[in-house]
């Protein structure tokens, strides 16, 4: 009988241990059907430095990544056809052909909620790559997003661009009138979006320049890349100029082995390209980049970039005029003023929402702030002389604006009142990451059964011991 009791005690202990084993015993968090993929590391860091002179503002951004990803979106010659590798993946691209990125949003106080909640104001139910992403047909039928903007998915937008009952109500499909959107933008109600990409821009010295209002849109003008694909002929438009690059194409086995370095022609740009030659004897495994880099212009081409990976870190310098002269697309930086910024990075060959984000920070132009842009006496900043600000970033999962402002979120009232930020409750980036993953992977069905099973084992086990003792007596 004593042996039985020991067995029961061990069984109870095992039950507790099983439950507390938590993630190991719960269902796998990765779920392709629901586009769920959880990164191994929930947090990372970004070192931020900023400076300015009479003309320009400078940012120097560094973050760790063991393997830099600067290959992106390639066409591979297979069985007589060009096959695409590196479309925006769910999670990490299996061959590593998706570029690293650093981005940040800038607000001058015009956007409701951004000061306290940062990037969360832009992230909503129904965005592409969310488990509840709005379907292509539905977006195309939408009077504004589909018919006027000609979009096929929903991307970042501001609550102010939606006609909700309260300022924080922001359903994707109830867009303000075109006149209201236009008035908002004229009054500076948008987020300036600095978007550095390791492949689509960096090799030719540019970052993308975009803004977020009713959609994540590109600034006016020509962007730093275009698509190298001829839909009519079903073939690339351009290939490498062998006289300039020494190659007609890259080789897929070398791409997979990551043999092309930052100093090689792993990208295709206008300067080194020539029209695609169908008559060339293409070999199995030949690779042509699906993106053609080009000199941007207008408002779209205002951010110069110089990024290089070394010693386990990306080092990216971004430079832009304090005032670009495009007030509908860019936020001018004014000495003495303070702005709010929210940073994000993509690494490990991830795209879309598989990024790490920061809490909002203040950026002061010659003004004390979380990140203080130092005034330069010379033209060139000496980054060694400026102390970096270490910014913690976390994986945000699918925690979106609709959740954080709903009754399901214990801190919703503070957000609806716009008087506190996420960090006032979630005290660290790690805790934000953990809470975000918990929300993304929760499994309520199993939960009730686990509670029932646990209680039953304890009650049933105890009664069994009592019954067997009765038998003995």
């Amino acid at each position, binding site marked *: 009988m004593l042996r039985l009791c020991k067995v029961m*005690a061990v069984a109870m202990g095992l039950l507790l241990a099983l439950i507390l084993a938590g993630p190991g015993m719960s269902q796998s968090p990765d779920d392709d059907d629901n586009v769920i993929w959880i990164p191994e590391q929930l947090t990372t860091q970004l070192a931020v430095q900023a400076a300015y002179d009479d003309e320009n503002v400078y940012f120097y951004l560094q973050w760790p990544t063991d393997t830099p990803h600067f290959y992106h979106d390639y066409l591979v010659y297979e069985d007589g056809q060009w096959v695409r590798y590196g479309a925006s993946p769910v999670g990490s691209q299996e061959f590593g052909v998706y570029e690293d990125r650093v981005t940040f949003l800038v607000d001058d106080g015009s956007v409701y909620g951004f000061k306290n909640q940062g990037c969360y104001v832009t992230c909503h139910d129904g965005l592409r790559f969310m488990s509840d992403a709005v379907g292509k047909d539905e977006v195309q039928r939408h009077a504004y997003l589909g018919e006027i903007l000609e979009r096929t998915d929903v991307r970042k937008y501001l609550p102010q661009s939606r006609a909700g009952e309260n300022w924080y109500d922001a359903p994707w499909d109830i867009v303000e009138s075109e006149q209201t959107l236009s008035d908002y933008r004229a009054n500076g109600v948008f987020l300036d979006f600095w978007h550095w990409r390791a492949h689509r821009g960096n090799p030719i010295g540019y970052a993308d320049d975009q803004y977020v209002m009713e959609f994540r849109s590109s600034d006016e003008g020509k962007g730093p890349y275009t698509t190298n694909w001829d839909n009519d002929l079903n073939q690339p438009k351009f290939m490498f100029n062998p006289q300039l690059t020494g190659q007609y194409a890259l080789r897929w086995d070398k791409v997979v082995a990551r043999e092309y370095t930052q100093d090689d022609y792993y990208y295709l740009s206008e300067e080194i390209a020539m029209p695609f030659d169908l008559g060339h004897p293409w070999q199995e495994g030949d690779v042509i980049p699906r993106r053609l880099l080009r000199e941007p212009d207008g408002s779209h081409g205002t951010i110069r970039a110089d990024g290089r990976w070394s010693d386990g870190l990306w080092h990216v310098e971004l430079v832009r005029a304090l005032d670009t002269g495009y007030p509908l697309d860019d936020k001018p930086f004014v000495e003495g003023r303070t702005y709010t910024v929210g940073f994000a990075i993509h690494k490990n060959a991830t795209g879309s929402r598989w990024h790490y984000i920061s809490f909002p920070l203040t950026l002061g132009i010659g003004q004390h702030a979380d990140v203080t842009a130092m005034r330069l006496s010379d033209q060139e900043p000496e980054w060694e002389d400026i102390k970096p600000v270490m910014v913690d970033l976390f994986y945000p999962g699918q925690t979106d604006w609709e959740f954080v402002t709903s009754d399901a979120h214990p801190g919703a009232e503070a957000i609806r009142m716009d008087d506190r930020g996420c960090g006032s409750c979630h005290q660290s980036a790690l805790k934000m990451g953990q809470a975000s993953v918990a929300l993304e992977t929760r499994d309520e069905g199993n939960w009730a059964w686990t509670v029932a099973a646990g*209680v039953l084992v*304890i009650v049933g086990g*105890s009664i069994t011991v009592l019954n067997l003792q009765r038998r*003995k007596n």
Partner: protein
Amino acid sequence: MELRGMLHTILSELHIGMLVLATGMIILWLIAARSRREQMRTLAIIADRTAYVAAIAGLSALVLAALAGLYTTWEWEAVQSTVLTRNKIMISALSMAFWGMLVYVRARQGEYVWQRPAITGLYLALTLGGFATIVLAGSLGGVASLKGTILDPFFDALKLNRYVMLVLPQPINYSLIVVTLVVTAWSFWVARSGKADRGKAR
């Protein structure tokens, strides 16, 4: 809301205090009962009775604290949808089962609980499980109320993520339920047949 939240806090402090007292008294019994000195034996009797009373009071406060926690702290939707509170509800339910069965066993067996090794073993297992679960539930409450707990370094060192839903795969849930029901039913049959045998023997 502040006042209602306070009710949960007061009841939580009360049940944790009472149940820790019950655990302490049961440990004290284990020490005192081994002694041959009369004073220690008296102490063991007092410890046993104190543990019993403290367990009843603690269990009552635990149930009331759980109800207060469910209905008077956060919005019901937040309680339901937050993984941390789901985990806390689960651990609290297990705690209620441990302490509930402990009180039941003590009520049924009286002081015989210490005289039958099998029942003593069960009693100690329930104590251990009950104590571990109230500590865990209290720790989760500390995290939920943003105050943190002294167990935080322990959890961090073990890389235990308290935001991950504590669930078992469904096959394990079903297996546990079926096996427990079968074994418990069998034990009733065994107990009844033993009673019948004794009746025949008389």
